[in-house]
């Protein structure tokens, strides 16, 4: 389906696809097997100017929005969701600065991010605060010209590989929803260290680690936005990042569909290629239809968000939950179409199925997404 991309958007798609084709696809199986972070590929992505897609021009970026990120992520996810996640997580990590940072702070961090010289990560989740983000226990206490942070963040994507971390910490625990603030912690800050790298079911080329803050001292100017606005910024951040995750689902499902159709045309059983059988055809038809529906919803949501509407949470959550549930189904079906071969590591679809699962979990589980949508519907119909 034609989505009427502009010439520049088309260039983004081509550039990202070329990285996938030339750099990601040849390396993805090995990175997955070795649980290795895709450093050189991220450097290629940086060289191709993709890290700057959503950074304003005045800071050296391309000046694009949510839709441009979605286009790039979809193409990268066709290669490997692990690599694409690393890229997406860096964007997620710097969004708070973009949304709420002062111009001095933006000036300090955004140019390097745009060039891909430094990568970011988002530190919200803790052992006791997953879906219930308000349950965080990391604290930030004033001490003269410094803030001192204490706590542990869990399962942070790009942990240990990023240079710039946006950490959500309680500045006024007794104030509840207004009690948190966001801080920029940099690799090398005193009292900041990393835990071991997690061994995951999928997206193994992405690095997931604990962040340990033990009397981590950072200068006062590292606070992002006003004190107490932490959770508000977090919500805004997630609103604009969800379509990115959704587009990982779209790209992944596309790759899986491509494998399934190609295979079905070649595999001969009972004297015919299996694509001639309705059972297979119907599976492929459903996969393709749901994929296209997801794509249209994700693109629509991204464009909606770029128009800076008053309400975006519902649409943002919808595209995330739909596209990621779709990706799980399509990748599972792709393994089924490839049959025994699909189960073997020699073929790429089993990895795709393993990679798909996390999309339903991170950035707000699909259960939380449904909560958001339900609550928004409730609000909408009350007006």
């Amino acid at each position, binding site marked *: 389906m034609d989505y009427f991309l502009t*010439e*520049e958007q088309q*260039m*983004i798609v*081509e*550039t990202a696809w*070329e*990285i996938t084709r*030339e*750099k990601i696809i040849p390396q993805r199986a090995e990175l997955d097997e070795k649980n290795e972070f895709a450093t050189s590929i991220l450097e*290629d992505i940086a*060289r*191709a*100017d*993709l890290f*700057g*897609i959503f950074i304003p021009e005045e800071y050296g970026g*391309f000046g694009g929005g949510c839709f441009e990120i979605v286009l790039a992520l979809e193409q990268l996810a066709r290669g490997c969701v692990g690599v694409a996640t690393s890229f997406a997580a860096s964007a997620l990590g710097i969004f708070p600065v973009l949304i709420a940072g002062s111009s001095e702070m933006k000036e300090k961090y955004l140019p390097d991010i745009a060039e891909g010289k430094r990568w970011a990560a988002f530190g919200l989740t803790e052992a006791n605060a997953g879906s219930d983000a308000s349950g965080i226990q990391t604290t930030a206490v004033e001490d003269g010209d410094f803030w001192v942070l204490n706590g542990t963040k869990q399962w942070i994507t790009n942990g240990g590989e990023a240079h710039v971390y946006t950490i959500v910490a309680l500045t006024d625990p007794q104030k509840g929803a207004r009690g948190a603030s966001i801080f920029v912690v940099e690799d090398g800050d005193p009292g900041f260290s990393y835990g071991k790298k997690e061994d995951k079911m999928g997206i193994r080329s992405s690095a997931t680690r604990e962040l340990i803050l033990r009397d981590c001292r950072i200068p006062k100017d590292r606070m992002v936005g006003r004190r107490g606005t932490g959770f508000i910024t977090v919500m805004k951040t997630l609103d604009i990042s969800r379509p990115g995750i959704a587009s990982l689902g779209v790209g992944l499902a596309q790759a899986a569909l491509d494998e399934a159709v190609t295979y079905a045309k070649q595999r001969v059983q009972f004297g015919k290629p299996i694509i001639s059988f309705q059972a297979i055809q119907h599976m492929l038809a459903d996969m393709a239809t749901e994929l296209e529906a997801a794509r249209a919803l994700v693109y629509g949501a991204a464009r909606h968000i770029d128009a800076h509407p008053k309400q975006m949470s519902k649409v943002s959550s919808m595209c995330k939950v739909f596209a990621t549930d779709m990706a799980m189904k399509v990748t599972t079906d792709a393994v089924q179409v490839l049959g025994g071969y699909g189960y073997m590591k020699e073929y790429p679809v089993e990895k795709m199925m393993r990679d798909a699962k996390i999309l339903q979990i991170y950035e707000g589980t699909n259960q939380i997404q449904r909560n958001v949508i339900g609550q928004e519907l409730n609000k909408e119909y009350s007006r």
Partner: protein
Amino acid sequence: MEILVCIKQVPDAKDVRLDPETNTLAREGVQSIMNPYDRHALEEGVRIREQLGGQVTALSMGPPQAEEVLREAIACGADRGVLVSDRAFAGSDTWATSYTLAMAARTLGTFDLVLCGKQAIDGDTAQVGPGLACRLNMSYATCVQKTREVDKEAIVVERMMDDGYDVLRLPLPALLTVVKDINEPRVPSLKGKMKAKKARITTLSADDIGAVPEHIGLAGSPTQVVKVFTPKPRGDRMIFSGTAEEQVEQLLEQLEPYL
């Protein structure tokens, strides 16, 4: 440093098939691409410019559509692209081609380093590089698999030999033809693509480069094609049929003398 990279637009070899009916090349759907070896030459030129500063000029001799590869070169880091194109160049063999490229290079200025791919995947002669070096009176090395050092005076390279490689020090100006091992070309960047879109590709005609008619095109080609033909198939062939098992049995019978 003034760097010249010579680039050729060629048909994508893997798409080229023989049409069994007409016994000629089936041309539909065959893409034109930048000669893969030239892509590596360009990448090396861009890297050297990143190291020492200067300018990378991409030069191509070809029909008007070859402008595409020059834009691609700019997207991949070249500072400018120049096309030398003229009907009078038709039928050029490698002698006339190196003459034309040399005249174009001289028209553009003096260069410290000229980089070419080892060979073009359509002609596969690997003759233009050395010929060009000779006309520009430059030291040269072919099949360079690595540049070890480069400064304003000289370049140290690994030049492949049949038994390994030699390490050479060439004074500048020098010409290198490169093999694929020399580097991993970058993916064209977004900014590069935008620059390429807006770029003005200079086109030079035979007159613009001061080319002498006797030295270009068919007239300037000491080699001439007598005929073109398809090779004869081998005699007495046996194509087996049946299941894999049956075919293998039949083959084993025939292969007795080799076992």
